């Protein structure tokens, strides 16, 4: 029996852990990985105190921070169900079953898939959701980045010095990512933006050879010969396991300004919630708030 279980160890979960450790709560962290999406970012220039830090470096700093407090972390463990029963929260994972007085869900988001033929077959065979990880394997090759938001621009910026040519395949009329990133990217001659284009299939033999794209205005289809596909079309919340918790239309867990969900004892923080704006610094703040709210809840329960 724990006072608190934190699900996830991205910016929100890590910050909640640091606060929980300092409040000397009896708690446990269950997580698939450490660092979450932050670990996959290329360049981070808007996290206070760091004018520049890479995602993996920040993730390492996060990990060092919780290791300092000797936090109990079950890494590589995925939660499959969270529900409240008899005044307690029950948490089931593929590896075990836990009970706690409170839980903070900070499970973040994962990459949205294209859902087109060939996507599954060519995953890691030229198609990837992580430019930071796999980008360097495409040195001197022609690649396509799918998307038009900040993550697509970030992925493209990571690739400009590696790949020979980058097609940025964007379904909307124009790019929606930050202007400063757009300007930076468009300064490179090896980048070509293709607006109003939808990917309809990923093609190849052993590895990716091309993608089929359709112009959503003219309806015309064409084949783009590339050897790499970087899918950056947004994110979906990892909230399926929180069965009884109220969510919005996007599957994000609804929280109030105290990070409380509709179920007493269940709190949520960071990108998995409906908090406006998904940013590392915001997720950190939300994680801190969630922990302090759980702490207050615990003291009123005694």
């Amino acid at each position: 029996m724990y006072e608190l279980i934190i699900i996830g160890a991205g910016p929100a979960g890590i910050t909640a852990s640091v606060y929980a450790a300092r409040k000397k709560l009896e708690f446990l962290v269950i997580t698939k990985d450490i660092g979450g999406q932050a670990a996959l970012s290329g360049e981070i220039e808007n996290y206070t105190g760091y004018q520049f830090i890479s995602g993996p470096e920040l993730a390492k700093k996060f990990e060092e921070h919780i290791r300092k407090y000797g936090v109990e972390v079950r890494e590589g463990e995925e939660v499959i169900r969270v529900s409240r029963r008899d005044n307690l929260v029950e948490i089931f994972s593929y590896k075990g079953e836990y009970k706690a007085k409170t839980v903070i869900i900070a499970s973040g988001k994962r990459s949205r898939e294209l859902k087109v033929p060939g996507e599954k077959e060519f995953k890691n065979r030229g198609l990837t959701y992580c430019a930071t990880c796999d980008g360097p394997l495409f040195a001197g090759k022609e690649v396509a980045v799918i998307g038009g938001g900040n993550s697509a621009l970030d992925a493209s910026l990571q690739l400009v010095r590696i790949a020979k040519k980058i097609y940025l395949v964007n379904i909307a009329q124009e790019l929606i990512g930050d202007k400063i990133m757009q300007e930076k990217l468009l300064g490179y001659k090896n980048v070509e933006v293709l607006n109003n284009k939808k990917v309809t299939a990923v093609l190849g033999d052993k590895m990716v050879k091309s993608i089929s794209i359709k112009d959503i205005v003219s309806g015309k289809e064409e084949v783009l010969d590339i050897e790499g596909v970087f899918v950056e079309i947004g994110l979906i919340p990892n909230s399926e396991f929180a069965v009884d918790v109220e969510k919005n239309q996007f599957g994000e867990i609804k929280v109030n300004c105290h990070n409380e969900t509709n179920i007493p004892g269940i709190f949520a923080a960071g990108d998995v919630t409906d908090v406006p704006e998904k940013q590392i610094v915001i997720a950190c703040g939300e994680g801190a708030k969630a922990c302090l709210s759980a702490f207050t809840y615990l003291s009123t329960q005694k």
Partner: protein
Amino acid sequence: MSKSVKIYSTPTCPFCIRAKQFLKENKITFEDLDVSQNPEYAEEMIRKSGQMGVPVLDIEGEIIVGFDKERIKSALGL
């Protein structure tokens, strides 16, 4: 008797960094092959694992794709 351990990685990949940290923590000596610097390593990795995702670990011929802690542990007999 220590096993031969190779890791195919890129310097930026967080799971590569974590996998290497894990090996170090367990005092496993390993050969780090940076596929971003050497296309031969990249080809070798693709041939061995049939895919392009990093990290790939080669532990005495057993190929492990990704930072799969449990499989790494069992391959190393930890």
